């Protein structure tokens, strides 16, 4: 493998190391040797460089009215991302919207919500309804755990992949 072809793998390896405590990596394979050494903690502390935030876009978000619709932030493309960060904690998993529609916490307006913060959910247990094209779709949990966060208000629209609940595995 030439240098050119190896680049992507090297990049992946470096990314893999970020956030771990590995200080040195040494590989020998198929006519190739690679060694990556990382800054020690002290060195890093002395380092003024910004934390390894990957540069996101060549383009900044558009100016203009994007996302200016009032009360509608939840269906912005950033919703998923933002929420994604929140669950970086270990032991936390998310339940996301498998379809586009309107989120309801209860099977009917008078009924109590399927789950509250603190509720324990089991795999296969309904956690909410997403109404799509006038059909009420019961969304079932795929995990077992305690609901620690509910990210969408009742009767709000949700897009595909949007995080609805954060669940702490128990």
């Amino acid at each position, binding site marked *: 493998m030439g240098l050119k072809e190896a680049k992507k793998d090297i990049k992946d390896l470096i990314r893999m190391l970020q956030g771990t405590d590995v200080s040195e990596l040494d590989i020998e394979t198929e006519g190739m040797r690679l060694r990556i050494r990382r800054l020690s903690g002290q060195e890093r502390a002395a380092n003024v460089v910004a934390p390894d935030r990957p540069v996101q876009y*060549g*383009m900044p978000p558009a100016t203009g009215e994007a996302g*200016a619709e009032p009360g509608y932030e939840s*269906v912005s493309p950033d919703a*998923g991302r933002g929420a994604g960060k929140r669950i970086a904690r270990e032991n936390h998993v998310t339940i996301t919207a498998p379809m*586009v529609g309107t989120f309801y916490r209860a099977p009917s307006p008078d009924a109590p919500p399927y789950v509250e913060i603190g509720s324990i959910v089991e795999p296969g247990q309904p956690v909410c309804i997403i109404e799509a094209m006038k059909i009420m779709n019961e969304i079932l949990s795929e995990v077992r755990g305690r609901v620690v966060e509910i990210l969408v208000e009742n009767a709000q*629209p949700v897009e595909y*992949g949007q995080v609805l609940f954060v669940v702490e595995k128990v």
Partner: protein
Amino acid sequence: MFRKILVANRGEIALRIVRAARELGIATVVVYSDIDRDSLAVQLADEACCVGARAASKSYLNIPNIISAALITGADAIHPGYGFLAESAFFAEVCAAHGIKFIGPSPEAISRLGDKAEAKRTMMKAGLPVIPGTDGVISDIEEALGFARDVGYPVIVKAAGGGGGKGMRVARNETELKKAAKFAEAEARAAFGTAALYVEKFIEHPRHVEVQVVADEKGNCIYLGERDCSLQRKHQKITEEAPSPVVSSQLREKMGRAAVKGAMAAGYTNVGTMEFLLDRAGNFYFMEMNTRIQVEHPVTEMITGVDLVKEQILIAAGEPLSLKQEDVYLRGHAIECRICAEDPYRGFMPSPGTIRELNLPGGPGIRIDTALYRGLTVPPDYDSLIAKLIAWGRDRNEAISRMQRALDELIIEGIATNIDLQREIVRSEKFRSATIYADDDVVELV
């Protein structure tokens, strides 16, 4: 007028629709698959809604999620672009059932024209020329010979179950026809399990000439000249131009009137394209009608000044056509080069990846339709078309020289593209002399 249009597409055409809607003062919602989150159309639209995973079947073809997205965002119309759901009569019906206007023709017109045989019958009935052929499968060689005597040689023998060139044979006289029928029959039996054959007049070195028609919902229909899309690679259009370098103004009017007649006979509304094969004697034959905006629509816009996507929106909103046939005036000549993320030196393999550097040409006569930006990652999941470079000139020569210098200015780094191939095409003698035909493979020529 619509308050909000949902754009059910991606890439350059999604951006094209967002631009048209914005110019009309209409808000937009762009739907996207989770891998297209950072697309320019998503960034420039007023709203965006993720409708599924990267596989098109889960997102851009996911009718329930797209309809839901329209309902929750309050969009009152959907523009399907081209590809994906653009020619789905079913989708158009679902839109209607939910009180959402589908920006395109009626579901009935889509169905009627989407079925090739029915489309041909409709056009024949309307008096349009179609390629003469035996009335269905031939029963014996005598029938084939009789047909050939009537229409004249060359003819082509085709397998009824066929496709992909299998079971096809050209014959230039009686002896050849007898031989061809025998060969084709054997080949067809082997390939498709049936020996059923039919015979058609064979058009040698045809040009692919398509007429742009525009019809409102009030019964008005006009044509906006033609496009010549004879330059193809494996039956894929690659470089298009308007007007056709071989169509005279008399022929233009003749083809245009035929196209309008056909569209009206089919109950067609909105913009559409009537595809014809044109032979060297100036005879043209109806092939099919595309019931959507086409990739190559900008060349027509450049010479007519008409914004076809805006026209689509206005027609769908019930407006009458913005101009009459006598107001249509063609100025100059326009060429479009399709820029694709594919590697011509490695069998046109798709080359997804991240755009590391980008320089777009500008100056007089140059238009570029692209959703690329530096840093964008082109996913491997969809069509490889990443940009359309369009050059206009007062005449064909000026358009060609503009296209050449614009291709020299265009820089896309990080992925392989067909820019060099387009350079070779545009400077080739065959392109300049307009002697590339729809049955040529342009890659073998230049």
